[in-house]
């Protein structure tokens, strides 16, 4: 077991700042890599060393493995934290880190590879007896197989890329005709986007709730779950609002999902932080979807209700430390809700809105947490994801959390760029959301997203 003395943050924006804070608190030196477009990024000011690794475009900077590894070598770091997105679930990158004797803060190369293949992950879930969304046994071998199976399952169905995930590489088919064309198109798109044309089939669960379980596992194989996050508020499969606990989720269901999540983690030899995603149908039954082998955007929600700093746990676990606690030690308190703040214009079909932020006023108060790299005078670059911050609230009850979130959203001021703040305010006043009766189609249905 070796304590890290220096880690490299292979990411940008709010998560880079988040990781930097955790490292500092653990007395670990930080190396921040950045693209030219990010040279005025906030966390650079706080990092012990900064290295410019390339021009703005991600392919030439944050996704460029040799540049990142090279930066890690010349700054002599012990480990790299990949954050989320970019190279966080890139097995090849994790492998290169390993061969360069740099610790990759995340699961093993094998676990990333196995669970990164969404088809294999499903097979594994089945094998250990976890309920999966009804669908194909493995990869679809032909259009005929797809059609036969679709008829058996009953339309509508979902064609999904095995190398996809995170809402990408999915197509709905409502009948034989759309299945035939959808199957072909899905394969072409998967080949183009993920270099792997393989697809599998799932029955489309109508108006589901998306509930995921956070897990933590150490390198010895001890696993705990840290409860669920309900991420049903999505627009085009991109999450916007997440909360814990999932409103109205029965304790037995939570426990069963938690156990299922731990089961698949153990079966995959998983270590570090991960998230096991499920869908809940209208009857309250849960079905396994996929595993995300990384820290997630919405991790603060779990941190608030459990009191556990997940980024620090990631670092600790990666340096070889044991978990140090058991499932019975995990306590959930109160209700936490997170709202993602994006630089996008809802009136222009959510077109990204990069540009100069002329004013940034973060809300404060009891139980209010802001995770953002924004500051007045900062220019949001056009090359990256439009998320510019997260607003998280934690209170004793969901009702109180909603009241605090409304107040916090009112207090939040961002000027100079368009944001989804007004949409967020509208959602937090919508009676369906307030009653906890939303599903993944909510935003599209009520706000024409």
């Amino acid at each position: 077991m070796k304590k890290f003395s220096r880690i490299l943050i292979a990411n940008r924006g709010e998560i880079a700042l988040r990781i930097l804070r955790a490292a500092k608190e653990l007395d670990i030196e930080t190396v921040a890599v950045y693209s030219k477009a990010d040279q005025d990024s906030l966390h650079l000011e706080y990092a012990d060393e900064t290295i410019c690794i390339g021009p703005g475009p991600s392919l030439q900077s944050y996704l460029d493995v040799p540049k990142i590894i090279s930066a890690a070598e010349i700054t002599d770091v012990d480990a790299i934290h990949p954050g989320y997105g970019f190279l966080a679930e890139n097995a090849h990158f994790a492998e290169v880190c390993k061969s360069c004797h740099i610790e990759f803060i995340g699961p093993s190369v094998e676990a990333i590879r196995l669970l990164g293949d969404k088809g294999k992950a499903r097979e594994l879930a089945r094998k250990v007896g976890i309920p999966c969304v009804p669908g194909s046994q493995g990869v679809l071998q032909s259009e005929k197989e797809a059609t036969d199976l679709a008829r058996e399952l009953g339309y509508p169905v979902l064609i999904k890329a095995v190398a996809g995930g995170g809402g990408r590489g999915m197509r709905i088919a409502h009948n034989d005709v759309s299945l035939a064309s959808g199957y072909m198109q899905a394969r072409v798109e998967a080949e183009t986007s993920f270099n792997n044309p393989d697809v599998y089939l799932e029955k489309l669960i109508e108006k589901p709730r998306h509930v995921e379980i956070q897990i933590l596992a150490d390198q010895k194989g001890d696993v705990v779950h840290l409860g669920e996050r309900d991420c049903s508020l999505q627009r085009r499969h991109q999450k916007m609002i997440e909360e814990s606990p999932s409103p109205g989720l029965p304790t037995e269901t939570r426990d069963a999902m938690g156990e299922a999540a731990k089961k698949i983690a153990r079966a995959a030899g998983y270590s570090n932080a991960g998230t096991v995603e499920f869908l809940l149908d209208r009857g309250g039954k849960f079905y396994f979807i996929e595993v995300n082998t990384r820290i997630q955007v919405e991790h603060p929600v779990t941190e608030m209700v459990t009191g556990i700093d997940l980024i620090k746990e990631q670092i600790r676990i990666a340096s070889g430390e044991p978990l140090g606690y058991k499932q019975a030690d995990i306590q959930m308190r109160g209700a936490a809700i997170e709202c993602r703040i994006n630089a996008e214009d809802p009136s222009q079909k959510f077109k990204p809105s990069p540009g100069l932020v002329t004013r940034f006023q973060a809300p404060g108060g009891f139980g209010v947490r802001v995770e953002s790299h924004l500051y007045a005078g900062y220019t949001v670059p056009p090359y990256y994801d439009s998320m510019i911050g997260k607003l998280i609230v934690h209170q004793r009850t969901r009702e109180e959390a909603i009241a605090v979130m409304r107040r916090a959203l009112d207090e939040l001021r961002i000027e100079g760029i368009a944001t989804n703040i007004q949409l967020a305010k509208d959602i937090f006043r919508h009676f369906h959301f307030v009653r906890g009766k939303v599903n993944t189609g909510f935003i599209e249905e009520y706000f024409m997203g």
Partner: protein
Amino acid sequence: MDLSKIKDLKDLEALLDLMGRYGLAEVELEGDGQRVRLRKTEAPVARPEALGLYPLAAAPAQVAGEQVVDASGSPPAQAPSNLEEVTSPLVGTFYRASSPEAEPFVKAGDSVGAEDVLCIIEAMKVMNEVPAVLAGIVREILVKNGESVEFGQPLFRIEVE
């Protein structure tokens, strides 16, 4: 020619037109406390400094390596105001030669062509040769042998023709 009357682009364009018509590469006019110098350069990227007004009682030029015009009014010494920087295209370790025993690729004062190798940047055990991209004379070497460099870091200053 009354240089104080050259106030805007139209006047400069008239001068440029003249240059074109007579096939001139460079024109320099001086008088009335003003100096105008227009130089046609073959460089692929148009440089703003190649087309400029150098009033003698001038504020110092901000471009690195540019000669500051003497405020006393005497014509400046023949100094390079056309220094281009070669920046690092990679993250890695800078080496001036192909191996510890070898001679450096370039020294100050060497003339280089666009294809000539200036240095090596080692990244992940791969030795990447960095070409000059510009043609000219190496004037300054800004990094020490064995030093770590990041993307965009200035490595050399080359005086271009």
